[in-house]
């Protein structure tokens, strides 16, 4: 349950923040949600990764299919050296997913460290 709430929150926050802020704000979104909702390191990463992977891949698919992937057919040979819009869209999702996932991973470590510190103080 925590996992899905994290996932949806990161995706929603990333979408909203990217309307006004640079793309890398997705790392901050992952971080903040992971700090707020405690999860294991693996689950945190996965929630951040999947959230933005689905968000970015979905959005780029939606934008790209609006004109039959015309631009993606021209850009993909330039960037990934093969004419394959789907692969380009997956690569877009992968980059976003990694950045947000690593942000969330950092958030979960910070949370755990604060917990460890407060316990040792008792």
């Amino acid at each position, binding site marked *: 349950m925590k996992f899905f709430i994290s996932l949806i929150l990161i995706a929603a926050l990333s979408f909203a923040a990217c309307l006004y802020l640079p793309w890398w704000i997705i790392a901050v979104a992952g971080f903040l949600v992971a700090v707020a909702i405690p999860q294991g390191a693996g689950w945190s990463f996965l929630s951040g990764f999947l959230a933005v992977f689905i968000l970015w891949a979905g959005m780029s698919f939606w934008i790209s299919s609006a004109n039959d992937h015309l*631009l993606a057919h*021209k*850009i993909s040979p*330039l960037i990934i050296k093969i004419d394959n819009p789907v692969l380009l869209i997956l690569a877009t999702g992968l980059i976003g997913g990694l950045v947000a996932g690593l942000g969330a991973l950092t958030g979960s470590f910070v949370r755990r460290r604060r917990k460890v510190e407060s316990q040792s103080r008792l």
Partner: protein
Amino acid sequence: MQISTPAFNAYGVSFPGSPGIIIGFNDSCAFGFTNGGRDVRDYYEIQFKDDTRKEYRFNNEWKQTDFRIEDIKIAGKPGILDTVAYTVFGPVMYDKNFNGGRQTNEKNYAVRWKAHDPSNELLIFKLLNHAKNYSDYSAAVTNLHTPGQNAVFATKSGDIAIRTQGDWPAKWKGQGDYVMPGTDSAYMWQGMIPQNEVPFQYNPERGFVSSANQKPADSTYPYYLGREYPVARGFLINKRLAAMQQITPQDMMALQTDNYNIYAAEIVPKLLKGINVQELNSAETNYFSMLSNWNFRNDVDSKGATVYDQLFKLFRSAVYEDEFEKAPKPIQFPFETTLLEATLRDSVYKFFDDIRTPNPESFGDIVTRSLKGAVLSLQQLEKDGKLEWGKFKDTHINHLLKLAPFSRLHLPIGGGANMINATKEDHGPSWRMVISLTQQTEAYGVYPGGQSGNPGSRFYDNFIDQWAAGKYYSLWMMTKAEAKDSRVKWTMNFSN
């Protein structure tokens, strides 16, 4: 593009940033340009007194140099200060500061270029867009100083005109073909050709005017015209137009996209006659007969056109290359027209001999040898499936950054150099337009591109196939009443 104001209504093509229609038509007339290509830039060798460049030799005295300091701005950095020396001729373009690709910087060359003189070329297009008759046209195009153009013109009332318009220096024969001495005022431009002696035609008896970068006047013209002008296209256009009657827009489209190779049609029969058939093996005979059966049209699927192209290239270099490599440089390679003239007239033309061999070669020896050489590359082309002219020429339209996915490669289009459809490998006639100045103007046009610069738009390159196929679009000159037409999808409003 169309511009409509209460004062005029003009349609055609323009350059980005130009506030006017450059080639197009309005409600009363149509106008177009081809490059005049005359030499309006000459170089003079300057003798400076010393390295400071403060004085230079001119008419047996030392003359003061003017220095102008150009501040070339660079974003985020201090500018570069470039000190340019000015002489009576103009700025010294090549000196110790700028070698321009020369091996040494020892010599100093000043440039006299007509384009350095102030003028107002934009006025031409403002006036032409408003033009209603021949006198409006004359008043408009005479504002063209540089770069000189062949300006063609036609009105609804039936007037036609052409003017090789520009400010042309009146030169003696050969003046400025090479660098001239900068020490003597006698080598300077002595004057300009008066505007009433610029070549022009107004309603000529033959009933048409034509322009294809051709030589603007014949040998009776008293001024030196310089350079080689492309002959083939103009020659064929004039021949075709003279024979045509009751011309329709479709006839003009067929003319503009004609792949007939008049140069080849002149020279190939002579080449075929020269080839010694007994010396050919079966492969060579095969290509020989492809050439003999060729219809002189460089159409997309023509194999004979490729055979001719390969043979002619080798023939041309076999005739001249041996002498050329021994000639003192710089010297220009002989023109194609010179070769045609010599081949047709003279079978003992002295350049036919290959001076690298002890035996004298005849015309027949050289052509036969060229065919044998050409066959080697033709066999390879045939193996690669590139013997058809369109595939061999492989016309492409590059994106400015030469990115293949943003370009259009391997276009199926014929034509080439010396043909009316002068589409070469990567350049050629882009804007094709036919205007029929009938009661209700009929206008057609096409260009190899699209209305959007965005490679992600389907309007980026959607005209290219139409252009390559030699087809046109009908041009819609909107009237005020049509502003609410269902074809109008968007309106842009401006305010300030």
